[in-house]
């Protein structure tokens, strides 16, 4: 951080936030996606609509939630709906513009694994599982993936396919009838990968300042292709960084507050 003036998490968050246009409807996951969406909402996209799978539609949290259903989300939402309706009436009905996903593994076609490392019946690592990811991957008009790039997570072969990206590429996803367009960008700690317009294989499309193509290739478990023109992304704007750090400081403070429960009765 000292060298660049920002952390990898910070530039990933700011880069993800830049992908969000005002008034888009986002299905938000916890962690970096939630930070990116709220940063966008607090800067260039004040009318961004945040839907968390807990059923909070239009949440405007002042501090970041630790869980997908913190009280802060309920208190600031336009509407709270039962969880079956969030999936049926919003996601499945095609009301979500942007879905965010992370995973333990991604392959060159943007398919994701968040279920197991190793064999399903005898896993080496049991991961949390699908949650909302499978349907976000299918139905969101477009998907943004946010993941740190390592050879262990960017793999030639997934151990398990939890959420569909472009499947085997070359139009396989469209042929499956999937309503959403799939992962339009994979935002990593090196830069951004995007699908090739025909093969749909992810290729390196943009890098953060001071990061080279070879470093990104070395962090990828398959022979990473590089786009015809690689963009160099800007460093985080000081204003955006200030808003993000302020948000995270407020969040740390809020989460550190001791709980007191009144045992009436």
């Amino acid at each position, binding site marked *: 951080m000292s060298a660049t003036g920002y952390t990898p998490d910070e530039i990933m968050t700011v880069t993800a936030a830049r992908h969000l246009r005002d008034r888009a409807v986002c299905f938000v996951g*916890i962690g970096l996606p939630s930070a990116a969406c709220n940063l966008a909402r607090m800067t260039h996209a004040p009318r961004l609509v945040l839907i968390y799978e807990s059923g909070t539609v239009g949440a405007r949290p002042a501090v970041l939630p630790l869980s997908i*259903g913190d*009280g802060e989300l309920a208190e600031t939402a336009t509407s709270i709906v039962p969880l*079956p309706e969030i999936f049926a009436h919003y996601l*499945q009905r095609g009301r979500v513009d942007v879905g965010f996903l992370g995973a333990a593994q991604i392959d060159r076609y943007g398919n994701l694994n968040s279920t197991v490392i190793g064999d399903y019946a005898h*896993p080496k690592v049991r991961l949390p599982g699908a*949650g909302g990811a499978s349907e976000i991957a299918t139905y969101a008009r477009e998907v943004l993936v946010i993941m740190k790039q390592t050879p262990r997570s960017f793999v030639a072969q997934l151990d398990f396919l939890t959420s569909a990206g472009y499947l085997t590429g070359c139009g396989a996803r469209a042929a499956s009838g*999937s309503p959403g367009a799939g992962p339009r960008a994979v935002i990593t700690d090196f830069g951004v990968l995007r699908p090739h317009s025909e093969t749909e294989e992810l290729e390196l499309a943009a890098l953060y300042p001071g990061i080279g193509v070879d470093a990104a290739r070395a962090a990828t478990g398959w022979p990473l292709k590089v786009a015809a023109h690689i963009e160099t992304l800007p460093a985080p704007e000081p204003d955006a960084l200030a808003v993000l750090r302020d948000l995270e400081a407020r969040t740390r403070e809020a989460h550190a507050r001791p*709980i007191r429960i*009144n045992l009436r009765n």
Partner: protein
Amino acid sequence: MALLPLNEAIATCVNDGDAVALEGFTHLIPFAAGHEIIRLGRRNLHLIRMTPDLIYDQLIGMGCATRLTFSWGGNPGVGSLHRLRDAVERQWPQPLALTEFSHAELALAYQAGASGMSCGLMPHYADTDLARVPGASLRTVRCPFTGRLLTAVPAVNPDVTILHAQQIDAEGNVLIRGIVGAAREAALAARRVLVTVEERVERLAADLNAVVLPSWLISAASIVPGGAYPSYAQGYYPRDNRFYLAWDEIARDRRTFTAWMERHVLGMPDHAALLRALGVAA
């Protein structure tokens, strides 16, 4: 509806071998009820819950469960459920059979159960590997109107669903305020419904369109202030995010887990004592 002390309510409503759903999505997770199941030493349970959360990590680690139906098994915003992982990866303290869904599928399964249906439908696109694992329970049917393939999800009907809620009134009607998750569907799908509440009031502080479970749908209720801690009860106390972070360390190791459970759950007469021991009771 019978108003009972929690240990009696659990003793009456939860039997060895039952399919049990403790619901509440991040919000209103019935921790006190789960701890009482552990104290009563229930065994061979089929646990059902969208997000197993810490309470199922505890039940699994204490050997209460042999089967888990779920859709996301992590410590939200923190990482793994180490006891769940230990059971799946190394069969400790015993093997745990999994029935795994996505959130949308399990929500639909509760909804089908709540509607007296044997299954629910959703559109079908490319199969993920989830449809192919041992124990996978999804099937397909063709839409009789469009001819397109649909995914059929079998109904889930727990023997007993346990919820935590804010208030119960003099007649036994129960108010849930805030994030409701699939709590209503899980309750309506169940054969028996047990509810713990923050407080008893003469009349619910309920808006016209509030989420209220009528007393005649409820088998038993207990008044347990703080009964959702370390989860939360909107309007009463917030989620103890620090506890969720701390649990990662406590549960990572079998020994520290067991010691914590022996001291804080088995070693406490009830939930109020636990809250006092943790220093959160005012």
